[in-house]
């Protein structure tokens, strides 16, 4: 699956990872991500998102297939491109007794970057004043900010973020969302794995959904949301069980949701017919509306409620 036009900055071909306990985390995964924009990477817990990211970054060797990052095979020649890639994998990992600034300075030293770069990225993530405090004393949100600062330190072309909003408060989530958007608009390629589907919907241009290690859907956010629209009508009514029985007897697929709500799996063109059928049985609607689709509903439908987010 290729989005847009341009050179692929991340490309997986027949990617497979089977662990020693015979668990297949990724199964024949193919995707290609062109340069620029924000790409969401969704999947239930255990679907293989983090394993895929680890394969991209050379932390895990694929059992078969390959991942290329900026044109280089991740398991062989990552060295020549690693300075163009910033990444946050799962939880923020730093030395707990070192200050945030000191942790970043160590990485800056490895990359030959000046200390002024460390101060710059700390300011970006709002940790300028707390940079001297030990990492162990940081809140989860601050740790997450520091990890994001570390990914920005190299001023990378490609940024891979695994659950960047974990532990952030609502204001922090908004800040990170804005930061990701800014970075995406500046021409960088952002690859974001997230559990927060609402955030992904607001932040990403494109989304890829995997389940059980396999790609099940990908496309622009609008395309994916459109997949779930117009397929269900929500009825508000006083006697939902009677209504559902009548509709089911007429060949509809009606389901009672709660004491006043029934969903019917039909598109909007059948709304009048439903109303007439129920009225003919002395059941009068208090409301009828099309069920709004969201990335979340599409995700749940595509993954068949396979696991929690």
């Amino acid at each position: 699956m290729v989005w847009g036009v341009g050179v692929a900055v991340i490309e997986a071909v027949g990617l497979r990872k089977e662990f020693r306990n015979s668990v297949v985390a990724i199964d024949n995964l193919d995707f290609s991500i062109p340069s620029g924009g924000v790409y969401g990477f969704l999947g239930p817990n255990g679907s293989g998102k983090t394993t895929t990211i680890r394969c991209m970054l050379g932390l895990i060797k694929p059992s078969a297939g390959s991942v290329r990052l900026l044109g280089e095979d991740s398991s062989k020649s990552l060295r020549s491109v690693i300075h163009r890639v910033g990444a946050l994998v799962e939880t923020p990992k730093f030395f707990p007794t070192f200050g945030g600034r000191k942790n970043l300075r160590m990485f800056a030293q490895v990359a030959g970057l000046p200390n002024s770069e460390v101060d710059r990225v700390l300011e970006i993530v709002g940790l300028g004043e707390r940079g001297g405090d030990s990492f162990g004393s940081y809140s989860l949100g601050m740790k997450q900010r520091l990890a994001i600062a570390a990914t920005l330190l190299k001023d990378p072309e490609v940024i891979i973020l695994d659950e960047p909003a974990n532990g952030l408060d609502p204001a922090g989530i908004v800040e990170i969302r804005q930061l990701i958007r800014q970075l995406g608009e500046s021409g960088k390629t952002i690859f974001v794995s997230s559990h927060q589907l609402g955030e992904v919907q607001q932040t990403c241009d494109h989304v890829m959904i995997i389940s059980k290690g396999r790609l099940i859907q990908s496309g622009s956010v609008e395309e994916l949301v459109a997949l779930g629209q117009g397929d269900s009508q929500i009825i508000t009514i006083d006697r939902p069980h009677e209504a559902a029985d009548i509709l089911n007897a007429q060949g509809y697929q009606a389901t009672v949701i709660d004491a006043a709500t029934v969903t019917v799996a039909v598109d909007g063109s059948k709304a009048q017919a439903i109303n007439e059928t129920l009225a003919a049985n002395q059941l009068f609607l208090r409301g009828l509306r099309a069920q709004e689709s969201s990335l979340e509903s599409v995700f749940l439908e595509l993954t068949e409620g396979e696991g929690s987010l």
Partner: protein
Amino acid sequence: MRLFRAELTRFWTRRMTWIVLGVTALIMVFVVGISFTRTSSEAPPEGAVPWTVDEGCLEDFSSGEIQLETGSSGEFTDEDIELFCRTWTGDPDKRFWAVSMLGEKSWFQETESGFGPSEGRPAFDTWSDYIEFRESQPVETMTIDGVEYQGSQEPLLGFLSGPGVFYLILAVILGGSFVGAEFRAGTMENLLLWEPRRVRVILTKFAVGFVSSALMVALALGFLTGLLSLLASVNGTFQAVDGRFWRDLVLVILRVSVTAGLFSILAMSVATITRHTAAAIAAVLGWFAVSNILIELVAKWFRPFELFVNALAFFGKGEPFSYVPTGRGWDFTAFHHGYLVAGLYVLAWTLIPAAIATVVFAKRDLT
């Protein structure tokens, strides 16, 4: 080089490094403080020759106040009595701190009978005299089943090299925690996002651990030397200290430091394989605890090859011995190899696990 500098910075800014260094300094101050209380400023007068015969002791013998029991060696000669009065009177710490630092226990010539030695030894005016005497001693040999075996010298049991296991423990803690902390905090993964060449990463860590642990132990031993110099200047003497003494002292510090550095690599290797600091420390120190028992009970042949035996021999300038059954109910301890070869054995004990750790680290998934 940038990675080396970054790792070096991390090593020397770790809290653990300074805690270990601080605790070590406190222990040394404590030990030397006790030595202060056990010595006195009533040292031999300036210009006095150490180990001179105590005239009062000789008078006690002549008056019959002190009598020696006759042991298997027969009658005691006047020379034996004179030697007794040299070695068993007074407190040597007051007189000759250099000897207490580097001298061997046999300076006191303990024998089974509890009294004088069966062989005479001269008094030594300088450290060089002592070393020359030691090196001039004939080597004991024994022919068993037609094979001539050479006896083995015990290592120096001096103040610096004697408690060498303590310095090795320091190095094991420093090395094991240096790498183990990376796996605990997950920072190894972070580092690989900046330098993906794993072999380079782990070899750099080994190099930094080696250099830093060796330097730290050298610093600790230098500090101890300073404390002992202070002790000697107050309650002792530098009289017999000569150029050779200082050269030997530096060489002992160098050998202990290098050995500590190698032990640090050993601990880092185990920590890399097990991904755990405690496992690394437990493995090395556990081996130290049981190795001697295992050797004595089931694998006497293994003694000359054992890690700690070779380490202690290397920095104590001793000779790891092997057991040779005599067929008379006891074993002869025969020379197996010298202290420099012992150093090579320690190197092998270090490099083999380091090579395994490097391969494991290069191949293993970081999950």
